[in-house]
């Protein structure tokens, strides 16, 4: 397992910047939104939590499509499936690697970028906290979606069609935590719900993903 994790991380770095690129996409989105929407702070500030969370979501999504596809194309997926690694553990590792290369850097960078969108300062810790708790759910859900679509070439749009609706609860609670944090309201309930989603995803989805992979390998 550790070997697979290290291999995936190494590939992410080697192939032109796993870490940097998720971030860069996030940065560009934070820049494009004011350009598309208009630069007024009073227009940007209220939408900042939602946009930042949306950016995290899309940055995750964009790097999902090749999670298993690359391994399937060069035949390593077949070989991994015959190696003495349970597929559930493979899926968990893949999701973890995905989170380390996208979710984690996004979480660390979000406070800096949120300034571009005039997010109130008191919301920053809540933004970071919500991303920290919520992004693992995005990675695990995404791994499930990637496992479903691994057999299909050009599956990336189908993948987003399948995965984005699954992202909705995470997005709603994540943005809600940040918004409440910005307004100084209590964040306990959405935090608990977001945590529950993440824990549930981590516990259950690897099994669904492994089942989907087995079916796709047939």
């Amino acid at each position, binding site marked *: 397992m550790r070997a697979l994790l290290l291999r995936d991380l190494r590939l992410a770095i080697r192939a032109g910047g796993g870490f940097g690129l998720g971030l860069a996409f996030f940065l560009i989105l934070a820049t494009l939104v004011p350009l598309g929407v208009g630069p007024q702070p009073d227009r940007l500030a209220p939408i900042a939590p939602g946009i930042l969370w949306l950016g995290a979501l899309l940055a995750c999504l964009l790097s999902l499509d090749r999670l298993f596809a690359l391994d399937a194309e060069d035949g390593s997926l077949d070989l991994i499936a015959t190696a003495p690694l349970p597929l559930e553990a493979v899926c968990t590792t893949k999701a973890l690697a995905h989170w380390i290369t996208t979710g984690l850097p996004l979480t660390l960078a979000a406070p800096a970028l949120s300034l571009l969108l005039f997010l109130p300062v008191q919301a920053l810790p809540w933004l970071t906290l919500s991303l920290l708790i919520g992004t693992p759910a995005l990675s695990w859900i995404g791994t*499930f979606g990637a496992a*479903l*679509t691994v*057999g*299909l070439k050009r*599956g990336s749009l*189908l993948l987003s*069609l*399948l995965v*984005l*609706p*699954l992202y*909705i*609860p995470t997005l*709603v*609670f994540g943005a*809600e935590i940040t918004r409440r944090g910005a307004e100084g309201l209590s964040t306990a*309930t*959405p935090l608990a*719900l977001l945590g529950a*989603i993440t824990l549930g995803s981590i516990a259950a*989805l690897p099994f*669904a993903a492994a*089942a*989907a992979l087995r*079916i*796709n390998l*047939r």
Partner: protein
Amino acid sequence: MSIWEYANPRRFMAWTAKVQPWAWGIAAALCGPGLIWGFFFTPEDFRMGHSVKIIYIHVPSAFIAINAWFMMLVTSLIWLIRRHHVSALAARAAAPIGLVMTVVALLTGAIWGKPMWGTYWEWDPRLTSFLILGLFYLGYIALWEAIEDPDQAADLTAILCLVGTVFAVMSRYAAQFWSQGLHQGASLSLDAEENVADVFWFPLVVTLAGFVALFIALVLMRTRTEIRRRRLHAISLKARLA
């Protein structure tokens, strides 16, 4: 004889051939009078005026849209556990019906919203979770279409249906959490106090039953089509590879 015998394609074709006309008949017998009664012979509501007539399409279609998904959930589970092909095909057959019903409920709701709330669209939790349900239908149908091997497609879509159900329910609560809505509470509940007046309620129940019959008839017909498609597929495989 076990009840599962009816899920053998051949037996299924046999008994549905007999049941199907009845389903269509009942659907027509209930939908027609129900809608005519609702449209022509109900009084004005004191708040909503005649616009209340939209309820006779809106509520049944919303009801079917939700329950079609649950039917798909059940048949998917049957497929995953007992490997009855017809069960998977029934799930596939139901999905487009559910999608159309979702669209109908959304459209009638949107049109009704204009006179009632002054806007076609409002991000009300009930409405939002319905839109999300539509997205789940879309994804489910797209996955069926994208995979060529029917058994593989059945397996993958069944898994998607299971996971999707959990997330659709969570979305529903998330949406409620996220905004308080304008939408009606449940007025068809047994709790008499909230119920709409009887004049509106009787034709509504008739059309509701009619839509259920229509749904059953459509599912039977479309499942039969899917079975024939599979049979054709088996024949062409044989011919192509002989």
